[in-house]
C-alpha cells in the first residue's frame, strides 16, 4: 500500500498500513479488467484494482462514471461481460447476490434501500440473516435453538444500535425516519452482517456537516475497531480525501487515476474530469 506520508489523512493511513501491506498479505478483493455495458451504455470499461485487508479504499468520479456499477458487480446484482472478480480468494462472478453476502460482503446503497415498513431493529436483525442456523420448523415452534439464536443476535444488534446512536429510533418503521438517519440505519444493517468487506455508496449524501462528521467517525471506527476493509464512494471530497488510504478515479467507466488522496487531488486529469477548479 502506498502509505500517505503527507496530507490530512496521514495518521489514518499509518493505522491502516499497520494492518497490512500489499505483497505480503493477499488482497481481500481483486477486480481485474472488468467490463460492463448495457444496451448502448458502457458503465465499466477495463477497471482493475485491489483492496488490501483493513484498507479504506475510495472510488470517485463524475455522475454516471460507473461507481455504483462497480458495487453492483461486486455484490452480484450486475453480471459484467468481461473481467474477473475475486473476493477472499474466490471467484465471485456469477454467484447470486445472497451467496456473495454470505461470504461476507456487505454494502449500503446510494438510494437508501431499507425495508421501509420494518422497524430499525428488524432492519438490523435482517443484517444477521445468514448468521442464523435454524430452520422453518424451529421458527414455527420457537424451539430453544431459534430462541437462543435470536437472543444472541439481538444482543449484537443492540451493540450496533449503541454504536450508531440509533437507540431513539429503535422501534420506528424506517420509512418515517429522516433521510440522514436512514443512511445510518443502512450502515448499521451492513455492520450487523459482520462483513469482511464493506461497500459504502455515498454514505454522507444529504447529510449536514455535523452528521457527516458522525458518519466519518462511524466509518473510521468500523475500520479500526473491526478491521473491516472498506470501499467508499462519495462526492464529498472533504470526507473522501480525509479518510481514504487510496483513491480510484473513474470517468465514463474508465480508470483515470489511482493513488493516495494527495496524488489524486493534484492529478490534472482528475481535476478536469471531476473536481473542477482548484483542489
Amino acid at each position: 500500500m502506498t502509505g500517505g506520508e503527507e496530507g490530512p489523512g496521514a495518521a489514518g493511513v499509518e493505522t491502516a498500513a499497520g494492518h497490512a501491506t500489499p505483497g505480503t498479505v493477499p488482497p481481500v478483493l481483486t477486480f481485474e479488467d472488468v467490463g460492463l455495458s448495457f444496451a448502448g451504455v458502457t458503465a465499466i470499461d477495463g477497471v482493475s484494482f485491489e483492496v488490501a485487508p483493513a484498507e479504506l479504499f475510495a472510488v470517485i468520479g463524475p455522475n454516471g462514471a460507473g461507481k455504483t456499477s462497480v458495487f453492483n458487480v461486486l455484490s452480484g446484482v450486475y453480471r459484467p461481460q468481461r473481467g474477473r472478480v475475486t473476493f477472499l480468494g474466490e471467484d465471485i462472478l456469477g454467484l447470486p447476490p445472497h451467496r456473495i453476502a454470505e461470504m461476507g460482503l456487505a454494502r449500503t446503497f446510494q438510494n437508501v434501500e431499507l425495508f421501509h415498513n420494518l422497524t430499525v431493529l428488524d432492519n438490523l436483525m435482517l443484517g444477521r440473516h445468514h448468521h442464523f442456523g435454524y430452520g422453518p420448523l424451529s421458527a414455527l415452534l420457537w424451539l430453544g435453538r431459534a430462541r437462543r439464536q435470536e437472543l444472541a443476535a439481538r444482543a449484537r444488534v443492540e451493540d450496533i444500535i449503541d454504536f450508531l446512536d440509533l437507540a431513539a429510533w429503535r422501534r420506528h418503521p424506517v420509512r418515517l425516519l429522516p433521510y440522514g438517519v436512514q443512511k445510518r440505519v443502512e450502515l448499521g444493517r451492513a455492520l450487523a452482517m459482520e462483513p469482511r468487506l464493506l461497500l459504502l455508496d455515498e454514505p454522507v449524501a444529504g447529510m449536514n456537516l455535523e452528521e457527516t462528521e458522525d458518519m466519518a467517525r462511524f466509518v473510521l471506527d468500523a475500520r479500526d475497531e473491526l478491521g473491516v476493509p472498506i470501499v467508499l464512494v462519495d462526492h464529498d471530497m472533504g470526507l473522501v480525501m480525509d479518510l481514504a488510504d487510496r483513491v480510484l478515479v473513474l470517468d465514463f467507466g474508465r480508470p483515470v487515476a489511482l493513488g493516495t488522496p494527495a496524488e489524486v487531488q493534484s492529478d490534472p486529469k482528475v481535476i478536469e474530469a471531476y473536481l473542477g477548479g482548484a483542489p
Partner: protein
Amino acid sequence: MLEVRNLEAVYDDVMLVLRGVSLRVPAGSVVALLGANGAGKTTLLRALSGLLDVHDGEITKGSVLLDGEPVHGLLPAQLVRRGISQVMEGRRIFAELTVEENLKVGAHTAPRQAAANLERVYGLFPLLKERRKGVSGYLSGGEQQMLAVGRALMSGPRYLLLDEPSLGLAPTLVGQIRDLVVEINKQGTTILLVEQNAAMALSIATHGYVMETGKIVMDRPAAELLADEDIKEFYLGLGAEGAVKSFREVKHYRRRKRWLS
C-alpha cells in the same frame, strides 16, 4: 412573496413536526433553509406544495400565503398552476418513463411552453439530452438528480422549492447547480433552497433560516449567518480559527449549540 406564518404540522394526527414555523421568501430572492436531519425541512416543503395530505399529515395551525393570499388549502395541482414547483427529496423520478417523458410530465401544467422549456433543460443538462430516449430508472443517481431538477423547471415556476438539489452530485455539478440556481433566479424565479451543503447554499442566498426540531432557531441575512460562530462550526466545518477541520480529528463530542440554550 411566499410567506409561512406560525405553521404547525402534524403527521398521523399525533406527531407534531412543525411547531410554529414562520418564514418569508420575498419575490426574487434566494432563501436558504438549513437544519439537521429530521428538523422538519421536508415537512415544511410538503406543507408549501400541498403534499402533506399524501403522508397523512395535516396543517393544524398557521397559514401559507402566496402574495398575501392564503393557499394552504389548495391542491398540489392548483399550487403548481400558481407557480409553485418542488424538487422532491430523493429524486422521485418516474423510473418507468423515459427521460424525456419525465420532463414532459413536469410540463403538465404548461403545455404551451413545454417545447421551449425542454430545450432550456437540455441546454442545462446535455447529458439528459443524450439519454432522452432512455428509461430514466436506469440512470445513475446523479443523473437522476439532474432529471429531478430539470423536471421541476419544466413548468416554468415562479417559486421553486428545492429539497437538497445537490444531493449526490459530483463537485463540478454542485458548482453548476449553484450557477443554475443563480441563473434561474436572475430570470425571475424565486427560490427556497433546502441544502445540507451550507457553504454552497449560503454563498448564493440572500437570507437564511436554520431549523431545529420543528422550529426556526435562526433567521438572518445569509452574510450574517456565514459569519456566525455556530454556523461556522456546525454547518461549514470551520474550526475556531477558520481552518478546515479534518474528519479524522472529529471526536464524538459536540459542544452545546448556542441557539438551544
